[in-house]
């Protein structure tokens, strides 16, 4: 059952544990650069902080761009209170309802801290019906004065959730920032291995606040076809919405192909190309629930004169929370599917312009 795609599990673990809130992706970038260095002729870091790699394959074909984002959702320190507590703001999409009482790491030194909320004993009845907002919480690192706190972090520094990568039984892995370190690890594996075609790999920044690194990377390379490699939300957990709309994607049912999300309407031919590649390679895949979320493909597909784009994702439960859960088999299969799609992607014709004859 277990596939052996050569997925770099140790790299994925290191990437998941690394701290890289949007705009502060340095530690993630360092791990990726160290991993990629022996496998590439050249590598550059652009003005946005994205890592750009031009991979030589056996043949040149269509200009292919593969992307994964390095940043993760988290927090930014806004203010230090006289009491030594930090006020923080969200970076990226976070639900207030899962923040109270969570463990965090603060500042460049990763000081342990907690997102403290008032004890239930002290709540008035009307408070209980209200959501505790992040603005009403503080991050406590143990400091009792402003000066003590300043040694740990200053306004502008970031904080991450505290979670350590681990295996849950033989088939699952669990950790922080699978969105999108899983994509980074898949893309790094593609760069490290042999490729039938040339492609450009971009490890982007600032996806979580509006796909900003992706825009710049795609504008530079002007791809014909682009693929965003992602960790996407699984919807196979109990909820009224899943009952109504179907509980998919599911953990263990294979990589996820997106027809439409809030950022992109996938090019039909590219979708069919992936479908066919999966079929030929015997890889089970699943649909993403249409309309939800957005990926770097949103910027890839509208960069310069446009690129035909798709998102290929690993289903992960509980993205944008302290830790996500993913199936090893889905990750391996996503890498295999990406690899299987490379040759056909190289044969994609660059459309001369808008396909007017079809409209």
């Amino acid at each position: 059952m277990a596939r052996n795609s050569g997925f770099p599990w140790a790299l994925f673990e290191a990437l998941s544990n690394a701290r890289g809130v949007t705009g502060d992706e340095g530690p993630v970038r360092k791990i990726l650069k160290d991993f990629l260095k022996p496998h590439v002729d050249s590598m550059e870091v652009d003005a946005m902080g994205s890592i750009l790699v031009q991979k030589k394959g056996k043949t040149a074909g269509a200009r292919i761009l593969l992307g994964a984002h390095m940043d993760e959702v988290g927090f930014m320190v806004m203010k230090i209170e006289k009491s030594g507590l930090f006020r923080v703001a969200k970076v990226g999409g976070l639900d207030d309802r899962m923040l109270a009482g969570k463990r965090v790491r603060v500042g460049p030194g990763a000081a342990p801290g907690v997102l403290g909320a008032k004890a239930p004993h002290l709540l008035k009845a009307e408070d209980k019906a209200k959501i505790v907002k992040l603005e009403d919480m503080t991050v406590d690192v143990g400091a009792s004065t402003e000066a003590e706190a300043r040694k740990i972090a200053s306004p502008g520094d970031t904080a991450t959730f505290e979670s350590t990568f681990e295996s849950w039984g033989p088939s699952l892995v669990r950790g922080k920032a699978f969105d999108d370190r899983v994509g980074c690890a898949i893309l790094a594996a593609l760069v490290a291995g042999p490729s039938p075609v040339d492609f450009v790999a971009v490890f982007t920044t600032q996806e979580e606040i509006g796909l900003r690194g992706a825009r710049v990377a795609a504008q530079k390379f002007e791809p014909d076809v682009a693929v965003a490699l992602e960790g996407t939300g699984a919807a196979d957990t109990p909820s009224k919405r899943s009952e109504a709309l179907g509980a998919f994607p599911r953990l263990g049912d294979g990589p996820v192909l997106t027809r439409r999300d809030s950022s992109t309407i996938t090019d039909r031919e590219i979708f069919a190309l992936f479908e066919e590649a999966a079929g030929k390679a015997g890889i089970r895949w699943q649909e993403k629930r249409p309309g939800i979320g957005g990926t770097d493909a949103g910027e890839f597909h509208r960069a310069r004169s446009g690129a035909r784009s798709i998102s290929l994702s690993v289903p992960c439960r509980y993205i944008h929370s302290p830790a996500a859960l993913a199936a090893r088999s889905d990750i391996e299969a996503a890498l295999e599917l990406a690899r299987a799609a490379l040759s056909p992607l190289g044969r994609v014709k660059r459309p001369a312009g808008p396909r007017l004859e079809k409209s």
Partner: protein
Amino acid sequence: MALRKISPKKSAAKEAHGRDRRARAQAARKGSALAWLREAVEIPGVSGHEEALACWFAGVATQLGAEVRMNRLGSCVAERRGKGAPRGPRPRVLISAHADSIGLVVTHITPGGFLRVAPIGGVDARILPGQDVWVHGRQTLPGMFGSIPPHFQSGGPPKPFELDELFVDIGLAGPAARRAVSVGDLVSYRSPLTEMAGGRVYGRAMDNRASVVAALLALEQVARLNPAVDLLVAATTMEEVGRICVGGMTTAHIERPDYAITLDVTHGEMPGVEEPHAYKLGGGPALCVGPHIHPAMFKALVETAEREKIPYQVEPAPASTGTEVGDIQTAGEGIPSAVVSIPLRYMHSAVETLCLADLEKVARLLARFVVRLERGVTRGED
């Protein structure tokens, strides 16, 4: 729960062999607050299921030279006789700290293998989404409360999640989950004790293991001071559930002390939680005053703190103190009682935060107060 089933000597022997035992004894001699706290919070000890914790408590107390006994509802009492004739007469002083902590229990396993749970004690549902837990099934398994990502939430203004919308994910499909976990299995928070800046620590179940540890530290100091007082240190059960604190109540009834001091945690100050409902972390013990406290006990505690130059804070409690003291004070013919509290932030979360120095201060105050009780206390009205 019978005494023979949880003979502390047997369990201590089982747990500790060779080097382990020596290391443990050394740690016990050093009376390391942090080392004991780390061990104590690792034990789940959910209300009604305190056996392992009682065994740990008994092991440490035995090494400190106390004689331990377990009572019918699981509370563990360590007795240290004071100087003088073997049978006294000496004042009997009870220091009680409830050993149990809040937790959850599995009520249902969904066809998909997700666990539905109910609270044991005052669980705060607001902290549960995304919370790491241990599920104490056939084996102890890691789990987490599922959270619905913002992307999947339906429209409309969001409301706080109710516990019955939430579930624990242990990463097992239905049949496997049902083999690993049964309805009735316990769930505890997963949050290792972590050292922070400023001598503070966070972790689960600090409410009330911090007090259990402070009581043991006090026992250690009393052994050195050797007053003419018979000291009883009790790790009591089932404080977090129900209106009556069953463990403290029955322990007081059995032991019939002359004086009783209950150790518990109180709310630490933080934004939105200010005096008169909150006490400074690092500011030393909070001493309750009010109808549940014998005025002479409070006065003697204050005098002891001032004489020993131990900083303290006064915690007015117009009715219940929120501790088991109310059920100890009214045991038997009535027991002059007091409450000493450790300030703690984020109570009943998995990241309860306190200042280690407060534990030491509480222990020193208690030990000196036990010595003070050689002379007894009276209202001074008669």
